[in-house]
C-alpha cells in the first residue's frame, strides 16, 4: 500500500502492552473515520460503559493525511460516546495527524486503563508509555509546554486533555496543538477514564505515492481551482469568523441566540462582534492548518482591558455562537477569554454552551433558583459568570457537578419542567445557528449519528442559496438552495451523510470540500487523489458507496448500543414551538407534520424502515455488511414488518 505509514498500534494501557499490526488489515474501510467507526463497532461490546476500560479510543489518519492535498491535516477520533452512549467521531485540524503518519502509524487503538496517569510518546516507529503524574492537574496549554520541554523538542505535536477530561466531564474534548479540538462525544473524558493525559508524536518518515506525477498534477489543478473562488477570497479576508456560521460578514444571517430561542440577535450586539473589529483590535497574524489554502485561523493579542496580555489562536464561528450569541454575550474580551479557558480546560464549546445557556434559560423562567445554582444569579450576557461556570464544570464544583453531566442528564436530574428547554440531540448538547429556518441543515443535525452537530449530513447549500440548476446538477435536488423548503431535503441530507464521510475517511477538512463550495473537492476529485496516492483504483461512486457503508455501520452501532428509533430523530421542543421573532425568516419554526414527511424521505433514500427509522436487512446486505446484519439479528432490532416477511418466506 502506498501513502500509508503501514502500521497500526494497539495499546493496552492496563498491561502497558503495545502490539503492532499492518494497516493492510483495515484496507476495506480505507482510513480515518472509516477505520475508526469499524473498529468501534467491532470491538466495543454493548455492555461497555463509555468511561469503562472496555471502551476503546482510536486515533485515525486517512489516505490523504500528510500530503499536499488541500487541507489534509485532519486526525479523526472515534470512540463510544459519553453523552449518547452511541457512536462518536470527530476530527481536528492542526498538525498532529500528518506527524503521526510520519512517525510510522496510521491508526492507534487504545484500550484498558493505566493504573497511574501516563502519556504516549510516538516517534520513529516506536511507542513509549511514559509516566504523567506530574502532568495530571495541568491544563492543555501547560501540558503541551511541559511535554515539549521534557522531550527537548519544540516540534513535537501534542494531543492532550485538560482538567475537564481528567474529571470525566461529559463535554470534555481532546485538544491538538493547543487550540484544535476533536470535540464530540466526550472523547476527552474517555482519555481521562483511561488515565491517559496526552499523546505526543514526532515523525521523521516520508510518504511515498503510487503515482507521484499524476498526484501532483491533480493537486496543482485543485489548488488553482480553489484559489480562484470567491469563497476562498472571503476566507482570506475575513477568516472563519466571516462565514455564515457567525452570521456572515455583516451579521445579518441566521444565528443562534439565547439557548437557541431565536435566530436574530439585536443589531447593536451583533455589530460588536464583527470580524472586522476583531481584525482591527486584536489580529496580529493569519494562520493556516496543515497544507491548507483556506487559512481560516487568526492569532490575536489583547492589549488592553480586563484580560490585557492575552495571546491566542482564535476565534471560530462555533465559539462565537457558543460563548457569544447563545449566552447573549457581546463582550469581545470575555468571549476571547472563554475561548482560551475552554481550550485550557479542554471542553467542547457546543455542548458547554448548551448546558450553560440552558441553566440561564431555566433560571430566567423561574424553574430553578439560587438554591440549585449555589447562589449564582444566572443572567444573560454575564461574561464573568460564564467563566466562573467553566471552572465549576471543569472541576465539578457544586452546581458545576450537575452541569458537567451535560445538558440532557442535568435537565433530567433537576426535572421541574426544565427538560423541555434542554437543547440536545440523542442526549448530546447542541448549539447551532439557523436551525429553524434551514430545514435540511436541521435534518442533518437531528439525524447525525453522533448526537447533533453539523458535521454529519447537514448540508450548507441552503446557506449558500445554491441555484435550482446547480442543486439538480450536483445533488439531484432542485430545492437544495431554498432554506425553508422541506421537500427534497431528506434526499439531500442522505447524500451528504455519505459524502461527508468520504472527507472524514480521507483525512481532509470539510471546509475544503463540496460542503462549502462546489468548486472545492468533490467525490471524483477525492477518487482521483486517493487512487494516485494509494494505487487503489476508485471512482467517485465507489467512494460514495464506501461513505454509505460507514454511515450504516455507525447507525447500526447506535441501534445496538442504545436502540435509537424514529423518535430520536425529532427536534427538541423549543424548535417546534417557539418561532423566529423577526427578520427574513420571521415566524419560521420546525413544523412537526412536515418534519415527519422529511424524515420519511430521508429514511427511504437510505433504504431504511420508515416506521421505526431502523435499517432493513436488505439495505445491509446490499452494502455487503453481513456481519452488521448478524449482530442486529441477534438482538432482534430489525423492523417488525421485515421479520414477518422473512418468516412467511421461510414457511
Amino acid at each position, binding site marked *: 500500500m502506498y501513502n500509508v505509514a503501514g502500521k497500526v498500534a494497539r495499546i493496552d494501557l492496563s498491561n502497558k502492552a503495545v502490539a503492532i499490526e499492518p494497516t493492510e488489515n483495515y484496507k476495506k474501510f480505507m482510513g480515518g473515520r472509516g477505520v475508526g467507526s469499524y473498529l468501534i463497532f467491532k470491538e466495543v461490546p454493548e455492555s461497555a460503559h463509555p468511561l469503562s476500560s472496555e471502551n476503546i479510543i482510536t486515533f485515525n489518519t486517512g489516505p490523504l493525511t500528510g*500530503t499536499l492535498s488541500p487541507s489534509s491535516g485532519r486526525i479523526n477520533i472515534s470512540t463510544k460516546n459519553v453523552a449518547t452512549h452511541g457512536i462518536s467521531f470527530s476530527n481536528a485540524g492542526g498538525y498532529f495527524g500528518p506527524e503521526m503518519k510520519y512517525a510510522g502509524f496510521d491508526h492507534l487503538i487504545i484500550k484498558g486503563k493505566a493504573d497511574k496517569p501516563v502519556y504516549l510518546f510516538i516517534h520513529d516507529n516506536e511507542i513509549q508509555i511514559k509516566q504523567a503524574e506530574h502532568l495530571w492537574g495541568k491544563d492543555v496549554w501547560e501540558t503541551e509546554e511541559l511535554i515539549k520541554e521534557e522531550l527537548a523538542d519544540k516540534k513535537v505535536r501534542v494531543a492532550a486533555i485538560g482538567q475537564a477530561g481528567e474529571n470525566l466531564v461529559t463535554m470534555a474534548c481532546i485538544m491538538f496543538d*493547543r487550540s484544535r479540538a476533536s470535540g464530540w462525544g466526550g472523547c476527552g473524558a474517555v482519555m481521562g477514564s483511561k488515565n491517559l493525559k496526552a499523546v505526543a508524536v514526532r515523525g521523521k518518515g*516520508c*510518504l511515498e505515492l503510487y503515482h*507521484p506525477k499524476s498526484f501532483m498534477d491533480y493537486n496543482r489543478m485543485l489548488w488553482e481551482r480553489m484559489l480562484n473562488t470567491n469563497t476562498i477570497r472571503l476566507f482570506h479576508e475575513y477568516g472563519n469568523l466571516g462565514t455564515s456560521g457567525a452570521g456572515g460578514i455583516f451579521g445579518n444571517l441566521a444565528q443562534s441566540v439565547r439557548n437557541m430561542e431565536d435566530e436574530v440577535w439585536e443589531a447593536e450586539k451583533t455589530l460588536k462582534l464583527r470580524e472586522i473589529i476583531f481584525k482591527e483590535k486584536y489580529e496580529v497574524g493569519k494562520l493556516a492548518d496543515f497544507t491548507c*489554502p*483556506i487559512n481560516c485561523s487568526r492569532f490575536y493579542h489583547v492589549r488592553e482591558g480586563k484580560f490585557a496580555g492575552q495571546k491566542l489562536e482564535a476565534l471560530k464561528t462555533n465559539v462565537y455562537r457558543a460563548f457569544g450569541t447563545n449566552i447573549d454575550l457581546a463582550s469581545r474580551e470575555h468571549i476571547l477569554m472563554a475561548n482560551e479557558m475552554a481550550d485550557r480546560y479542554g471542553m467542547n464549546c457546543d455542548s458547554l454552551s448548551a448546558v450553560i445557556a440552558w441553566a440561564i434559560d431555566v433560571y430566567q423562567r423561574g424553574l430553578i433558583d439560587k438554591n440549585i445554582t449555589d447562589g449564582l444569579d444566572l443572567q444573560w450576557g454575564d461574561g464573568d459568570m460564564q467563566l466562573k461556570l467553566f471552572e465549576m464544570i471543569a472541576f465539578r464544583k457544586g452546581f458545576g457537578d450537575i452541569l458537567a453531566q451535560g445538558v440532557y442528564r442535568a435537565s433530567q436530574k433537576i426535572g421541574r419542567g426544565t427538560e423541555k428547554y434542554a437543547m440536545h440531540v440523542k442526549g448530546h448538547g447542541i448549539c447551532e445557528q439557523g436551525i429553524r429556518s434551514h430545514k435540511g441543515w436541521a435534518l442533518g443535525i437531528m439525524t447525525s449519528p453522533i448526537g447533533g452537530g453539523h458535521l454529519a449530513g447537514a448540508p450548507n447549500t441552503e446557506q449558500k442559496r445554491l441555484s435550482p440548476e446547480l442543486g439538480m446538477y450536483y445533488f439531484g435536488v432542485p430545492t437544495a438552495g431554498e432554506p425553508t423548503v422541506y421537500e427534497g431535503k431528506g434526499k439531500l441530507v442522505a447524500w451528504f451523510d455519505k459524502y461527508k464521510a468520504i472527507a472524514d475517511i480521507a483525512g481532509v477538512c470539510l471546509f475544503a470540500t463540496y460542503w462549502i463550495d462546489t468548486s472545492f473537492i468533490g467525490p471524483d476529485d477525492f477518487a482521483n487523489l486517493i487512487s494516485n496516492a494509494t494505487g487503489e483504483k476508485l471512482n467517485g461512486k465507489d467512494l460514495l458507496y464506501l461513505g454509505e457503508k460507514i454511515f450504516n455501520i455507525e447507525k447500526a452501532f447506535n441501534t445496538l448500543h442504545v436502540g435509537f428509533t424514529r423518535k430520536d430523530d425529532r427536534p427538541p421542543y423549543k424548535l417546534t414551538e417557539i418561532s423566529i421573532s423577526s427578520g427574513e425568516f420571521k415566524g419560521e419554526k420546525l413544523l412537526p407534520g412536515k418534519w415527519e414527511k422529511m424524515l420519511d424521505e430521508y429514511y427511504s433514500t437510505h433504504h431504511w424502515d420508515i416506521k421505526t427509522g431502523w435499517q432493513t436487512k436488505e439495505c445491509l446486505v446490499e452494502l455487503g455488511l453481513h456481519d452488521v446484519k448478524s449482530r442486529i439479528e441477534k438482538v432482534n432490532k430489525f423492523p417488525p414488518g421485515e421479520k414477518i416477511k422473512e418468516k412467511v418466506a421461510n414457511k
Partner: protein
Amino acid sequence: MKTGLRYSIEIDQNKCTGCQACVLACSYHHSRVFCLTNKSSIEIFRDNKNGNVEVSIDQSSCDMCLEEETPLCMQFCAIEAIKFIRKRKEMT
C-alpha cells in the same frame, strides 16, 4: 572583485501562515516523497504559543526547481508569500 546575478527563493515570514505546503512541495521536488525532514530545503516552525512563524531556507540545496516553470514551493503557496529573487551580488 566581480559582480554577478544570484537567484534565490525568499519567504515573507510575516505573511507566511505556517501551513507547510511549500515544505512538502520541496520534499517532492527533491525526492518524490512527502516529508518535513531535510529532504526539503525549506523548514518552517509555527510557534503556536506566540503566533509566529519561523522560516529557514537551505539555499545550498535549493535549485529553484530549474526544470519547472515556477518553483514548486511558489505554486503551492496560497497567500503568495514566496518570491523568486534576483540580486546582483559580489562574487569572489
